[in-house]
């Protein structure tokens, strides 16, 4: 598979993302945000974490208008698979590739720790190797992960099985690190080809570093 990782000024998780997919035996290419087209053999786009444009104005608000985002939007509209991690998720929200928006964490802190997640839906490419209600231990590191969507939008998310991951403790009870509505940590679009989550599966690839639960998540994309 050819996996493309766009890099914006301020991106800082691109090498972890490359490492993670190379560990899974895939070809990965970093593409600068000024590029206007994606490589023709792109099988998956992973928008990585970081602080694109210094998080100025709002996280992801300026990256959204980078030339490469136009190509990524066209790719997604055409059914291509896109995954946004952390700042990548924020960029996909700002691009309206995913519904809702991010607010500052409820306690205003930058939260950086391992966090358990509960799988809410596995009827999609991303989490197809996981079981519903399965718990995954994945690092989070963000100040704006307080996901918000208005009531009607939230109903639609549930009706279409778009709520994929929620925050919980190691027993699986709700445990919300940022004030996110309904403890939501990750969602997908209605067509189930665009995914976004605040936690960092690419940082959970080695048990010696605390967790390798990210492997089975990212492996879902590998055909």
């Amino acid at each position, binding site marked *: 598979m050819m996996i493309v990782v766009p890099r914006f000024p301020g991106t800082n998780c691109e090498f972890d993302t490359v490492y993670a997919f190379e560990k899974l035996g895939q070809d990965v290419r970093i593409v600068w945000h000024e590029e206007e087209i994606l490589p023709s053999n792109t099988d998956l786009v992973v928008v990585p974490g970081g602080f694109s444009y210094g998080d100025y*104005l*709002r996280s992801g*608000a*300026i990256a959204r*208008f980078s030339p490469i985002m136009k190509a990524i939007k066209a790719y997604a509209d055409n059914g291509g698979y896109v995954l946004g991690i952390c700042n990548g998720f924020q960029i996909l929200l*700002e691009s309206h590739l995913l519904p*809702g*928006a991010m*607010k*500052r*964490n*409820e*306690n*205003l802190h930058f939260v950086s720790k391992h966090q358990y997640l509960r799988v809410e839906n596995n009827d999609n490419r991303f989490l197809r190797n996981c079981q519903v209600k399965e718990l995954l231990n994945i690092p989070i590191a963000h100040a704006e992960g*307080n996901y*918000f*969507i*208005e009531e009607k939008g939230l109903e639609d998310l549930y009706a279409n099985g778009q709520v994929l991951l929620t925050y919980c403790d190691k027993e699986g009870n709700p445990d919300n690190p940022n*004030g996110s509505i309904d403890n939501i940590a990750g969602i997908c679009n209605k067509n189930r080809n665009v995914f976004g989550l605040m936690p960092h599966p690419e940082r959970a690839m080695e048990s010696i570093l605390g967790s390798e639960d990210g492997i089975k998540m990212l492996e879902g994309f590998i055909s």
Partner: protein
Amino acid sequence: MKAIVNVYLKEGVLDPQGKAVHHALGALGFDNVENVRVGKQIILHLESDSVQSAREEVEKMCETLLANTVIEDYSIEIVQ
């Protein structure tokens, strides 16, 4: 022409910063504050033929970039 844009979270969207500032004011003894909303102000200097066209243009800027209308409202004041 000068445009003053205020961007703030919509009514009904919980404002974590406003809540923290409200709490801090209470701790300092300002206990008559009922509600605090924290927003941001963006000041633009622009050339435009009329107040009307300036306002229309800034409105477009707000809709596309300056505000995220999923969670934020904005107000525009044009000063000549």
